[in-house]
């Protein structure tokens, strides 16, 4: 195994630990698109766990940026329009499809939920096709 595979595995286990803590602790699925989407409306006490989780994402990111900045040693070097288009499609699509990599990919597959297994296969397939098409066109 290469170093990046080992780091990926460690990171993956941490993601598992986090989503298991969410499920066992508060009975929730850790689906980040759902957590963000539901947080966007009126501020309500029932969303407190969602705000807290999102805050944790930011705090964890800041901690890593300070302690291990080498992990952020990459550029976001596509044309800005590509990030905007991607963001719009990902935002719309994940809400329409009720989940993203975390909710369907990490949690749903682990619950052996049929919808999540299909969703993950579909978004992986379309991700692969999109990258392949860009490779040909650009």
């Amino acid at each position, binding site marked *: 195994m290469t170093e990046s595979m080992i780091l990926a595995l460690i990171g993956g286990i941490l993601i598992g630990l986090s989503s298991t803590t969410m499920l066992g602790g508060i009975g929730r699925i850790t689906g980040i698109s759902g957590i963000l989407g539901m947080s966007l409306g009126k501020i309500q006490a029932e969303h407190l766990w969602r705000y807290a989780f999102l805050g944790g994402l930011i705090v964890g990111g800041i901690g890593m940026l300070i302690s291990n900045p080498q992990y952020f040693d990459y550029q976001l070097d596509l044309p800005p329009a590509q990030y905007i288009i991607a963001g719009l*499609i990902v935002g719309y699509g994940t809400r329409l499809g*009720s989940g993203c990599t975390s909710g369907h990919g990490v949690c749903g597959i682990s619950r052996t939920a049929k919808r999540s297994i299909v969703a993950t296969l579909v978004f992986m397939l379309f991700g692969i096709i999109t990258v392949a098409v860009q490779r040909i066109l650009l």
Partner: protein
Amino acid sequence: MKSTLVAFVSGIIFSVGLVISGMVNPHKVIGFLDIFGEWDISLMFVMGGAVTFNLIAFRLVTKRKEPFFSADWHLPTSTDLDKKLLIGSALFGIGWGIAGICPGPGIVNLVTLKPEAIYFVASLVVGMILFHLTKSVWEK
């Protein structure tokens, strides 16, 4: 209060996992999706690690009558493979392939204050709001 703390700590752990694993780096994500090019399979271990852990741990924690710090389970019950699921997931895959960023890593990337990360998350939010406004179209 406890449930808020559990979610906050889980968010931190999740974020550290995304950073260490390389999921926050869109170049790695594109490399992972680029199976016809220079395929970088390392990110397979992220989902592999997380799912393997959860396959065991989810079963253990859901044996309890209720979660540790909450009165109820909040689990999805739908089993339909409807067009919303399929079209939504296809759209997500396309967007993921365009920039190499999914929602979690997008949010974590905000801490770099790179303008592109901010463009992505701002558009992500707008896309979610657009869905909310057009939700009824899909109910037919």
